[in-house]
């Protein structure tokens, strides 16, 4: 599994990616505490480099969290 150290200097698993409303969002989970999760979305800068950046607000967070929750529940139920 891939991991990454995010801007808060914590190492996270890159758990899952989902396209939501034409944006690519990623779910991360702390490698030392899998209940410690967070989200980022991907942007492409002018230089062509891809970056994970934080979400805009609570509304975006709720939308993304609900989407990933449904997606993981579907996988667990298989």
């Amino acid at each position, binding site marked *: *599994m*891939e*991991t*990454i*150290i*995010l*801007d*808060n200097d914590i190492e996270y*698993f*890159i*758990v899952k990616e989902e396209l939501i409303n034409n944006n690519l969002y990623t*779910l991360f*989970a702390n*490698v030392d*505490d*899998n*209940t*410690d*999760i*967070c*989200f*980022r979305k*991907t942007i492409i800068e002018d230089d062509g*480099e*891809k*970056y*994970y*950046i*934080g*979400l*805009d*607000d*609570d509304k*975006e*967070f*709720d939308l*993304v*969290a*609900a989407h*990933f*929750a449904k997606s*993981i*529940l579907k*996988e*667990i139920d298989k």
Partner: protein
Amino acid sequence: MENYEDKLYAVQLERMLNDNANSKKARNTSIGNNKKTNHKSKRKNPGKKIIITLVLAGILTAIGIEVPTIIERVNYTNDLEKATAIVVEQATENLSNAGLVIIDENGNVSIKPEGNKIEDYAKLENVDSTIGEFYAYDKALEKAGDTVNTEFEKLIQASSYNGGTYNYTDFAQMCRINGLTNNGNASGLEFKKYAEQELVNSYRNGTIDQIMKKITNETKGK
């Protein structure tokens, strides 16, 4: 019984259950356009493993869904299933060794058609038995066909308490003596709840193998 992964799962879950701020943490860590990391920082880490149910618990908590109770219930059910299997297996072996059930070559367990006598069950030497022990015998006899508890009642009547001074008269009296009542009346539900909790506790603290006394073939009567 419990391996490293079970322990890691339990520790992380406990941490989440105790962390009241967890529901805000995910939000605070996720929101903010100034938080930026280049994709190139990704690396492969094959040595580490993820527990997806914990991830799900983290997400659900973050959006305000009460997860802890559900997860605790799932864990309880899993542990009860394992604990019950262990004690029922021993109970069945004891019953077989005491000549009270027959196990055929396919592993099917049955009681002889005419049933056992009360005094036959004395071979089990049930003195001051725990509720969990009685529960195990109840389940074992049920699997052998005792669906209306006729044989289980005989087992209870052959069991004694207070250091062997008195025999129980029946299941209802056993419940009353052991405080398994509801509004003063003997309660089968209280019996079940108490027994199951005893088994789960024993399983979790590693003493499940001590619940059942072992009856060997040498104690089998003619």
